[in-house]
């Protein structure tokens, strides 16, 4: 069985994360997409107000003022961006930032829709199939490649895989994310919870792999 080089896989995964962020302005998380889709089925799509960037900015300023009190710049919505009062003494204060325009270099995307989620899921499946094809591993099977697993599961392999998939779903929700959310997004941002979660993911994965034996 052929596998991609470790360095090529790493570069590919990192590229996917960066491209996803550049294209959508959001961090990539697969399980979050599934959760959002399930919630849309359970509760229906939420009504998201149609707002321009400037209207959105105004709404955020208003909400911030309501929550944290009157801010000089937050209520001064009539000044064009960049033409407001002189900078305040506190350079990092909300009032100071409220005069900055939305960063045009960052993508401005509205909330995701159901079609976005479905497209993403299909793209994940197609991408996985494509990657397997490039590696010469397009054989479909109802079991794992591991001889140890085949010996252990026998004819019950599909059932055990379905149960395992369900358990992965429970674990993902309990951990607040999956290997892409914690392992790629969280670790790259040095989030302590993600570092711990990824350490657990991979240590258990290595242990189970050793237990099941070579493929």
């Amino acid at each position, binding site marked *: 069985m052929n596998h991609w080089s470790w360095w090529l896989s790493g570069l590919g995964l990192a590229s996917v994360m960066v491209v996803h962020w550049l294209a959508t*302005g*959001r961090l990539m998380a697969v399980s979050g997409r599934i959760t959002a889709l399930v919630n849309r089925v359970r509760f229906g799509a939420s009504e998201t*107000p149609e*707002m321009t960037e400037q209207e959105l900015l105004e*709404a955020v*300023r208003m909400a911030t003022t309501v*929550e944290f009190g009157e801010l000089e710049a937050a209520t001064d919505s009539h000044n064009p961006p960049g033409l407001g009062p002189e900078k305040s003494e506190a350079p990092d204060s909300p009032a100071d*930032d*409220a005069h900055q325009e939305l960063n045009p270099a960052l993508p401005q995307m509205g909330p995701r829709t159901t079609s976005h989620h479905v497209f993403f899921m299909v793209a994940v499946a197609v991408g996985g199939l494509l990657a397997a094809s490039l590696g010469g591993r397009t054989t479909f099977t109802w079991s794992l490649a591991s001889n140890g697993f085949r010996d252990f599961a026998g004819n019950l392999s599909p059932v055990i895989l379905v149960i395992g998939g369900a358990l992965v779903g429970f674990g993902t929700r309990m951990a607040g994310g999956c290997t892409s959310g914690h392992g790629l997004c969280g670790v790259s941002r040095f989030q302590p919870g993600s570092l711990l979660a990824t350490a657990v993911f991979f240590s258990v994965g290595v242990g189970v792999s050793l237990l099941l034996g070579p493929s």
Partner: protein
Amino acid sequence: MYPLFKLAGILRTWQIRYCTSDYHACERYRRVLAGRPVPPEMMPNGTLLKQPGNKLRVVK
């Protein structure tokens, strides 16, 4: 929600109040824990962003 906050100062203010300080008070966090959907336009205090001119609606 994250793209709404290109303004770093405002983001930091909300983060200090609701992410690093009293995250149990975050309505978004509470909804996630309860398995309820989180509207993208919901602020951490439960306020839903509305178009200018409309009053902010608070859902708690």
